[in-house]
């Protein structure tokens, strides 16, 4: 397994653990790329706090800064790390205990 898989997933979960960062990511996911000012208008978070969160999200590779209108930086959601985290969740969500118990019941119950 590539060693950075877990590190990538961890950064996603750290980012998602904070409600302000969750709402920033959710806003970018639903509304597309936005500047820090756009986000401050849409969310009940100060512009300074948004800038701080965006810096963290950029370092984690979860958002990508790009040039926007009037020389303002726009932030775009970068979904590749989310896909790695999804795989972690997929392993946790996989239920074999239920089906195997059902198989046992099916065979032994019908005996």
């Amino acid at each position, binding site marked *: 397994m590539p060693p950075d898989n877990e590190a990538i997933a961890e950064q996603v979960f750290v980012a998602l653990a904070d409600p302000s960062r969750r709402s920033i990511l959710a806003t970018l996911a639903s509304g597309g790329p936005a500047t820090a000012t756009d986000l401050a208008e849409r969310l009940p978070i100060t512009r300074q706090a948004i800038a701080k969160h965006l810096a963290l999200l950029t370092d984690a590779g979860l958002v990508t800064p790009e040039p926007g209108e009037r020389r303002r930086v726009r932030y775009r959601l970068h979904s590749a790390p989310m896909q790695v985290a999804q795989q972690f969740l997929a392993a946790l969500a996989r239920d074999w205990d239920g089906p195997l118990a059902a*198989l046992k019941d099916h065979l032994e119950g019908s005996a």
Partner: protein
Amino acid sequence: MGFPDRIERTVEIAHPPAKVWAALTTAEGLGTWFGNQASIDLRPGGEAEMKWDEGHQANMRVERVEEPEVFGFTWHIYGLPDEDPRRTYVEFTLVPNGEGTRLTVVESGFSQLPDDAHQVAFEGNTKGWAAELGELIEYLDAA
């Protein structure tokens, strides 16, 4: 290691391997204890499908058929988008244990990193979308 690649479970069943094998590899079996409805083409490369009454569906590709010891298939990773190409491999191993069977299921492949090819495909997709939107705008502007 915190990132599980492999899930393994063993269960003891009070029936011989032949009976367990039938439950795992026939449409009647799979459609009873696992899904609500199933179909299977039992040969390597064959397609199998399970449907649940609530609308969920699983498509499998049969990989190993060694009656009555090993049955393996791949399927889409649960929880990932439908178009994601990554799949996990599920293998059932049946070992006679007295009158019964020791059944082990191993599902592996959860920690595949989206590889470069996938990454390229994904980036390509994103760019493709941007290009298509651009074409739509051009089309609308020209009209």
